[in-house]
């Protein structure tokens, strides 16, 4: 069995999420990696990929069309390489989630997203109903196309290998989509989905002004800031802060919930965090049932104290 793993590169280096995807694919047999990019970035990314141990080879496809990982040319490339592989794998990042289902449809295969565990070559475990149930599925497709929930797999090392690099040609595709511009998040804070620590606020923050009390704590911890749906619906913060079933699903090492009661909608988005801390003045709030550590008290007193105690 041979798997093709699509790697994400940023600034010429392979992301940790891609190394988690390789760790997952290791169970499936030999692994070839695929690196795409514009002609001027591809060499650095390919060299970085080649240093990852455990790869049979690194395939590179360079084209201006790949500079922004548009789904149309990327899916066409994956389909052109597919005949040599039994499994096609990527991390469940924005790029994997965008391109792999398209490639799967072109291969007439049902995509299997967010795989948490690989049981064997055709049996996979994934969450459904926002993680409220875990399903084990067996695929009858000739080829399996998977995205990997990276928080479930420890990444393979970045160094130690010396895989050969081989370039492949990008197939022609219809020129119907074009990159226009991009905007990076201005907060300077880590993104919610990839942050190691998240500080989150709910109804108890009382106002947009009140929500700002979380800023110094998040800055000191190098944390991302999240929110419950109530905080978003009340206009305290924009809705891209929302953690929950209809927002973002996160699993950081540390999740600090401030003034969040712990409705199921919210719990669905964060209950896989390694350590959960709850700060709430209502000692009966459901959040305390999932919290590893809880403080019963007024968050407007406790949060500044916590920031100070961090030194």
């Amino acid at each position, binding site marked *: 069995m041979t798997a093709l793993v699509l790697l994400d590169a940023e600034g010429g280096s392979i992301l940790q999420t891609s190394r988690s995807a390789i760790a997952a694919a290791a169970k499936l047999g030999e692994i070839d990696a695929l690196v795409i990019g514009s002609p001027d970035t591809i060499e650095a990314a390919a060299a970085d990929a080649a240093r990852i141990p455990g790869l049979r080879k690194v395939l590179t496809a360079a084209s201006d069309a790949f500079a*922004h990982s548009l*789904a*149309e040319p990327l899916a066409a490339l994956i389909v052109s390489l597919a005949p040599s592989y039994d499994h096609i794998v990527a991390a469940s*990042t*924005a*790029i994997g*989630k*965008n391109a792999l*289902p*398209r*490639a*799967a*449809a*072109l291969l007439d*295969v*049902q*995509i299997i*997203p967010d795989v948490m565990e690989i049981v064997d070559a055709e*049996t996979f475990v994934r*969450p*459904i*109903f926002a*993680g*409220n*149930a*875990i*399903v*084990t*599925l*067996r695929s*009858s497709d000739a080829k399996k196309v998977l995205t990997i929930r990276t928080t479930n797999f420890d990444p393979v090392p970045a160094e130690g290998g010396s895989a050969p690099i081989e370039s492949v040609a990008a197939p022609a595709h219809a020129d119907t*989509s074009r*990159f*226009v*511009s*991009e905007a*990076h*998040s201005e907060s300077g804070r880590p*993104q919610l989905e990839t942050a190691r620590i998240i500080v989150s606020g709910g109804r108890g923050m009382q106002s947009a002004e009140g929500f700002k009390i979380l800023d110094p704590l998040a800055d000191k*911890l190098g944390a991302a800031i999240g929110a419950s749906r109530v905080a978003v619906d009340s206009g305290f913060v*924009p809705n*891209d802060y*929302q953690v929950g*079933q*209809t927002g973002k699903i996160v699993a950081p*090492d*540390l999740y600090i919930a401030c003034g969040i009661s712990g*409705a*199921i*909608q919210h719990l669905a988005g964060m209950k896989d965090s390694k350590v959960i*801390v709850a700060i709430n003045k209502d*000692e009966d709030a459901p959040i305390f049932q999932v919290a590893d*550590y*809880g*403080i019963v008290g007024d968050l407007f007193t406790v949060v500044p*104290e*916590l920031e*100070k*105690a*961090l030194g």
Partner: protein
Amino acid sequence: MKILVPIKRVVDYNVKVRVKMDGSGVDLTGVKMSMNPFDEIAVEEAIRLREKGSATEVVVVSVGVAQAADTLRTAMAMGADRAILVQSEESPEPLAVAKILKALVTRESPDLVILGKQAIDDDMNATGQMLAGLLDWPQATFASKIEKTGDGIEVTREVDGGSETLALALPAVVTADLRLNEPRYASLPNIMKAKKKPLETLQAADLGVDMGRRLTVVSVAEPPGRKAGVKVGSAAELVEKLRNEAKVI
């Protein structure tokens, strides 16, 4: 511009689902069902494009059991012009749904298909991308802004680390993210009016699509529970525990 909006009837997002004792699935008997929240956003966006004069007709479609007709009525009460129900088993797989939708696109010839980015029951996040692939149309997933331009659309999409804007030629497929808009509530007069709007019912089998499942469920289990935590007395004690016991800071 004609817009097709596929919508799905799913368990209401406020319901905590329970896994059946025998591990065969999730117990949905007597559970409240609603329109998938991301599909409400898709419907809202299509209606707004029509209200701005960018679109002429909004057609909603659902693939699923007979009761999905209620979900289609809800979309028409929000403002969709007409509806098509393709009857099938409960929650068919995204590949089969994408093939059904492709058959409807061939019949209806929309310029734009707007879907939700994912359904909150199977959490697949795949149907829009699969449909775009089958049609060989361009796609813009996780959209937070859609604008009609001269001969196409510009779509801003949520990506890891920020957002990016793409220009797509029409026809195209777009999937809606949470940030795209705030869906409206249907007013009582509009709910009454929606009962008179046309709803056509088709059978999946009549569209020549193989609905056979590619994935079989081996088992469904509860996620592992969390062990009970402790309450601490002060911020200083909390920091000490996070540093020395949990070792996360």
